[in-house]
């Protein structure tokens, strides 16, 4: 078995990682050879809201994953931190994060490069590349759409402890995927830098040869949102009208430095969209909490696709033998409101059942918490009641994870393009009609029967509980039961 290291650079990287986490939680399958994902988030904006949410989510996932004692299904793919892989938890600071831009924190770019101590000739050279605003930029909040700053600061990451731990933990069959945006600051700057370092054999860094000869995929997000102009135009630090120009410039740079003769990538995925949605203008930090977008979901699918493609990819002498270029498509190209049925056949097959399983689990619990008394005498509930106690699996971890998941779905529904895989408000008597465009089939003769009633699912839970092997680990029994019951239920709806 091997590992997949996923580098998420900047805010987009963090949001795609969030989508991937939900996919893994739902049981979307990576290639059979990969059983562990190691997320590595690179973002100098320590307080970035998107990053914080993703880190919380990954933390919850890891705790839940420990209870998933079955081969396939909900929460089975392992997610590990670098510190877990290296057994050097003490020496690495923040979980999942790489990049100790120690010099960049609480500092202006001018101070970071030691502008005042430069000779007048060097100052003149610097002035050619960086505007006055660039030089005075506060780097605590990232690079605010300025890749020219990012490329200088991010180049430090190769000196970080985390990067060394990453190299040491890397094994020959492991692979790497990099997610970044091409139109911002951190992602656009970080991606080519990271890739260059990954493909370079550094005799001072052990194991760098394995990394340099590994299979590497990457995804670059083209502009897929715009930023509102702030009311006080003087405070505008990010101008989304420049996104497309920056994207073009970056692509032009990539065509020579990454592709062409260099061939640094085995697979390259691009995603983009006619921009119609606007996010609030903010500099970063806690306020940067953009709503989830369908393209981030599609980006996570690209990572899944990469793992299934690994056997066809080849690397020789620190170069990809051939780069595979891929774009994402949907079946209903002109629609701006998507559901599972409008995805392409392959994507639908990959996500319909798993995502529906996870959604059903949390939707059912929403009703369970509203009407606890209706469930407390159900056999499965009596056996597993302790998972709902304060220190039980559900109340400690799954409840929060579920809230993140349901709001992630809601955010994708609100966005443009809207991804609307599940119906918004579903009453308990209609619970099983929760998948958009899918209705539970009505029974022929039993005209009095309501096949969409939530009690039908509760019955499956009871029935599966009856035949399941019970253990003392209630958390583990709970996950196994819901994995099987939701699978049976969703298959009966979507067949």
């Amino acid at each position, binding site marked *: 078995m091997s590992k997949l290291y996923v580098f998420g650079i900047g805010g987009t990287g963090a949001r795609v990682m969030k989508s991937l986490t939900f996919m893994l939680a739902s049981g979307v399958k990576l290639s059979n050879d990969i059983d562990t994902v190691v997320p590595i988030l690179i973002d100098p904006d320590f307080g970035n809201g998107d990053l914080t949410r993703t880190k919380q989510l990954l933390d919850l996932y890891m705790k839940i994953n420990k209870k998933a004692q079955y081969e396939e299904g909900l929460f089975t793919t392992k997610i590990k931190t670098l510190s877990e892989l290296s057994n050097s938890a003490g020496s690495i600071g923040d979980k999942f994060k790489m990049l100790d831009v120690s010099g960049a924190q609480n500092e202006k770019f001018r101070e970071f490069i030691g502008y005042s101590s430069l000779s007048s000739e060097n100052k003149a050279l610097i002035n050619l590349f960086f505007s006055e605003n660039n030089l005075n930029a506060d780097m605590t909040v990232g690079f605010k759409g300025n890749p020219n700053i990012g490329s200088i600061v991010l180049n430090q990451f190769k000196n970080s402890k985390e990067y060394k731990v990453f190299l040491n933990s890397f094994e020959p069959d492991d692979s790497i995927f990099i997610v970044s945006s091409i139109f911002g600051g951190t992602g656009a700057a970080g991606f080519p830098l990271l890739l260059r370092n990954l493909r370079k054999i550094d005799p001072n860094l052990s194991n760098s040869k394995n990394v340099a000869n590994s299979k590497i995929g990457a995804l670059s997000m083209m502009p897929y949102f715009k930023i509102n102009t702030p009311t006080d135009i003087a405070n505008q630090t990010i101008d989304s009208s420049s996104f497309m120009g920056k994207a073009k410039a970056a692509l032009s740079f990539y065509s020579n430095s990454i592709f062409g003769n260099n061939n640094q990538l085995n697979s390259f995925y691009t995603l983009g969209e006619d921009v119609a949605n606007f996010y609030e203008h903010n500099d970063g930090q806690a306020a940067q909490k953009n709503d989830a977008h369908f393209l981030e979901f599609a980006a996570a699918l690209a990572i899944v696709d990469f793992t299934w493609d690994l056997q066809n990819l080849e690397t020789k002498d620190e170069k990809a033998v051939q780069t595979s270029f891929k774009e994402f498509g949907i079946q209903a190209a002109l629609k701006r409101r998507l559901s599972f049925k409008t995805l392409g056949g392959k994507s639908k097959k990959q996500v319909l059942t798993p995502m529906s399983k996870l959604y059903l689990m949390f939707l059912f619990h929403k009703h369970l918490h509203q009407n606890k008394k*209706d469930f407390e*005498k*159900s*056999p499965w509930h009596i056996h597993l009641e302790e998972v709902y106690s304060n220190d039980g699996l559900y109340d400690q971890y799954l409840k929060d994870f579920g809230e993140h998941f349901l709001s992630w779905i809601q955010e994708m529904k609100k966005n443009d393009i809207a991804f609307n895989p599940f119906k918004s408000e579903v009453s308990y008597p209609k619970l099983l009609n929760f998948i958009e465009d899918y209705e539970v089939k009505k029974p022929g003769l039993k005209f009095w029967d309501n096949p969409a009633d939530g*009690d039908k699912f*509760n*019955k499956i839970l009871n029935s599966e509980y*009856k035949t399941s092997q019970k253990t003392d680990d209630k958390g583990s029994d709970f996950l196994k039961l819901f994995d099987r019951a939701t699978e049976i239920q969703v298959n009966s709806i979507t067949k």
Partner: protein
Amino acid sequence: MNDWFANRFEDFLIYDQQFSDYVHKAHDYQMLGIFLIIIPILVFFVFYKPIDPQPVKLWKWFVTFLISAVLLFLTAYYWLYSNSMYNPIQNEQMSDMSAVSFTLQLSFWAVVFSIIPALLFSWIWSRTVSINNAKNPF
């Protein structure tokens, strides 16, 4: 079996020798015994297997017991009342009580005795055939 059930009923009845003899001769004590076992078996089977109601509630089990009790009472009463050996005396005041009140007494005690098979078969059906009510009422 007729004697065994007769002894059980007679332990609790306000006893009347003549009525009791008629019931005994017609083997109706045995029939009452069979009813008070069979009816809870069937009623609770229907409750635990085809209906198996949700949400699981204790009051639903009590309603089922009530249905079983009413069915048993009516069956017992009808059976005893329509017994041909019982007919000649049904309107006679033979002792302190009428045939009807003796019949009512027997039907009532049949219902009381049916609590035992009701509980026993609730336990058996809940543990074997039921999916949702496997823990109702125990």
